[in-house]
């Protein structure tokens, strides 16, 4: 008889042991930037060698040094582990920045690493071209890892998490309201999603490499575009190549990065109909097209039509980059006027489909909200009508609708709260709210958009830590992080 364990304490030893495993995986990934340094003959190989050693030793100590008395993990451990993994990954992921030839402060490094893993793409670097190839590779790689999810990657490769505890972590990390499984077992689901992600990244790398980019730049941009993160290898970002081909290719793949990956998994098996049957995907397309028309009108109105590209590729690039929370900007974005900026805010707020690599509150929730609002308005006149929120042909239970509304309220409150705290750190009002918004939605549009400094470097240290927390909260879709701050979570 297996007795259901009565959870009195949170199983900390087991949580740390699993994190140890994950750190060893992280150290394995660090070999890639290490090798990059060696290939380019850069002095930064030392910083990676040191980081790999530290991370691997720390991971091994935690894994083999801790002997938990029980191995079960429940809901609490699932939430705690998921949130902690992202923090631990950022702590060890920031080491290369600290040990590099041109070191940056701990606050800066942690911000950069967290911004990487959460695919926010906000940077403290004023000039990335001054950085070594290894560091650039590591920044992009962090985004790639964080894009699909660290836990999800582990579920795909480590059989040890393949039980119900792994389920909790899957639910805590994957974005969206409900989590579709594409295959019966969680490891197969994770493998499927990572498989799609990997193949798309590979195709993007090849496409970029065929174009004007070097192999190194192609890989870095493939990593940061597919994960909708937005780190670049040039100060001028994608604009540096001055190539329409690069922009078009990256636009297409950022768009794909904003689509639900389980949907793409199904489509990759020839079931393209599932895309057209999916309300969220259809809305995603519609939003993109409608905002495109509005952008074009706004650009024309501002008299910024200089060439055919400025009303085709450039606005499209900007829209996709914003809605998928990548956060890349085209060169003359500021000249399009404030209406465009307002539209950008709206796109940032909702982001794209749940289950994708993008940030924001997700279109799924927007649909639930709008359909529910429509019902409520109709009910004002016909109070006895029984109405339901229908998405993808299925009725959504009321408790899910109320969870979505709660999510959106908390989402706005967190942005506000973050903004208020940042103003206390001495940041001007508009910029404080904008950076808070930009970090919670994981977009990472430069602070430069609001005309406050060139990069996030200008924000005081305490502000960087707050923004890091906001990024994590946004990436794990609020509840996973917020629950850790409730006393009920820790109570026996």
């Amino acid at each position, binding site marked *: *008889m*297996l007795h259901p364990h009565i959870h009195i304490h949170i199983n900390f030893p087991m949580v740390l042991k699993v994190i140890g495993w994950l750190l060893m995986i992280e150290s394995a990934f660090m070999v890639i930037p290490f090798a990059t340094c060696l290939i380019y003959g850069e002095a930064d190989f030392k910083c990676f060698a040191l980081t790999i050693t530290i991370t691997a030793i720390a991971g091994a100590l935690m894994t083999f040094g801790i002997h938990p008395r029980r191995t079960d993990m429940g809901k609490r451990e699932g939430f705690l582990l998921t949130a902690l993994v992202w923090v631990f990954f950022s702590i060890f992921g920031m080491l290369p920045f600290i040990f590099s030839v041109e070191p940056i402060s701990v606050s800066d490094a942690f911000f950069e690493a967290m911004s990487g893993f959460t695919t926010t793409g906000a940077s403290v670097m004023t000039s990335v071209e001054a950085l070594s190839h290894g560091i650039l590779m590591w920044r992009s790689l962090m985004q790639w890892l964080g894009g699909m999810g660290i836990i999800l990657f582990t579920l795909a490769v480590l059989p040890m998490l393949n*039980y119900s505890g792994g389920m*909790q972590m899957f*639910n805590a990390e994957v974005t969206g309201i409900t989590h579709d499984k594409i*295959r*019966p*077992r969680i490891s*197969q689901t994770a493998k499927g999603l990572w498989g799609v992600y990997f193949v798309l990244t590979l195709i993007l790398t090849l496409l970029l490499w065929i174009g004007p980019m070097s192999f190194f730049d192609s890989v870095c941009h493939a990593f940061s575009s597919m994960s909708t993160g937005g780190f670049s290898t040039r100060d001028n970002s994608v604009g540096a190549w001055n190539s329409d081909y690069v922009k078009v290719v990256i636009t297409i793949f950022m768009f794909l990065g904003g689509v639900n990956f389980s949907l793409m998994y199904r489509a990759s098996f020839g079931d393209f109909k599932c895309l057209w049957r999916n309300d969220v995907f259809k809305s995603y397309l519609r939003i993109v097209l409608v905002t495109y028309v509005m952008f074009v009108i706004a650009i024309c109105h501002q008299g910024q039509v200089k060439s055919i590209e400025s009303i085709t590729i450039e606005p499209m690039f900007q829209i996709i980059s914003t809605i998928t929370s990548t956060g890349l900007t085209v060169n003359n974005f500021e000249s399009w006027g404030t209406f465009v900026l307002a539209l950008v805010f709206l796109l940032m707020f909702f982001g794209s489909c749940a289950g994708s690599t993008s940030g924001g509150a997700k279109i799924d929730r927007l649909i639930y909200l709008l359909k529910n609002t429509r019902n409520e308005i109709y009910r004002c006149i016909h109070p006895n009508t029984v109405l339901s929120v229908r998405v993808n042909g299925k009725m959504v*239970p009321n408790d899910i609708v109320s969870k979505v509304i709660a999510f959106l309220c908390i989402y706005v409150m967190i942005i506000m709260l973050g903004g208020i705290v940042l103003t206390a750190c001495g940041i001007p009002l508009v910029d404080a709210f904008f950076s808070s918004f930009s970090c919670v939605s994981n977009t990472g549009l430069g602070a430069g958009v609001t005309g406050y400094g060139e990069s996030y470097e200008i924000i005081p240290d305490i502000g960087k830590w707050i923004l890091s927390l906001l990024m994590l909260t946004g990436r794990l879709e609020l509840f996973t992080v917020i629950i850790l701050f409730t006393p009920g979570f820790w109570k026996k």
Partner: protein
Amino acid sequence: MRIIIAGAGEVGSHLAKLLSREEQDVTLIDQDAERLSIIDANYNLMTIQGSPTSFDVIAGSGAAQCDLFIAVTPFEARNVTACCIAKGIGAKRTVARIDNYEYMRQSHREFFNRIGVDSLIYPEYLAAKEIVTALERTWVRNWFEIHNGELIVVGVKMRENSELEGMQLKELAMKQHLFHVAAIKRNHETIIPRGDDYFLANDIIYFTSRREHIDEIRRMCGKKQNDVKKVLIMGGSRIALRLTALAGDKYKFKIIDIDKEKCIRLAERCPDARIVYGDARDIDTLREEGITDIDAFIALTNSSEINILASLSAKEYGVRKTIAEVEDIQFISQAESLNIGTIINKKLLASSHIFQLLLDADSESSKFMALADADVAEIEVRPKSKITKGAVKDLHLSRDMTIAGLIRDGKGMLVSGNTIIQPGDHVVVFCLQGAIHKIERLFN
């Protein structure tokens, strides 16, 4: 193995959880989204909301590639329909839960195969069979016959008066080679014992032996066989109905039920049994019906708690053998420690039956056993499988399983460390929960 389960009721969800723990690919179909969402969020399996008799839903669940389709909704007709559809779509093997004894007849087997139902499970029938075995042998907790009774696994509760009490397993092994101790259940936990483990009072010990040595086991455990004639059944459930039909006139049954309508129906369907309309929780009713001189008391109401408590009070009135249906799996272990003779659980019986199908063994010749946290399976050894690669002691079997015995050329024999298992042998494996997939690896 890809398994689709239609129906997330008691049996269905229990099976789904169990099979997902056994590292099988499980998809669970049910109409009730709420019921599914709880399982979906906590177990490593996929759920699909929809009608189990819809072509689209069954095809969408991947029936075309599935190895086993199990229909266990509460409705027999739906289960059969679902199996027909699944088989039509391409399921390799289908199982339907039924509720009609007629369907189990051998002569109808061919008909069911033709329409696409490969196997039938009838949990109430399995439970009734289990009860009959328990009535025949009052001194055992569990009795499992393997390969037409060539080998027998018995679970016996150890009392202080037993001569085995306090003895070490290896001492016993030096004395005799008539039986093998496969497992010991101690304080809610089943262990696979080693030579240096002791027998303690209140353990339930699982012996494997040949039929002729069973009496020796009984003697060593200090048990007596009581012949049962008068049986009192509390609750006129489907199991009770099945039981009276199965046992025929071997026993004198008296069924007490609280529902008058039900009593009238029972009276119509069980001509041999005496039906009493009354509340069996009431001591006076029990006394009136002669609780003091009956031989066995069987509690089969819907409530596990009532069954357990009623069995305990029957024991106080001097009833030698008590049997209780306990459907809440959490309670089984508690009930076992409370001195209830035999515990019946439909879910475990059904799921063990399905495990047997999974292992592809011949479910006809062996009685498959269901314990709360362990299973016994009879498996035919295929040529070149890992288990034939050496003497048992050199195979380094994992600690959660043991080879309890084997059947070679139709003859049961015990296994020692030096035995080399040959292809074609039927091996009886005793394994703790979650280890069945390891067995598969060993035998394929």
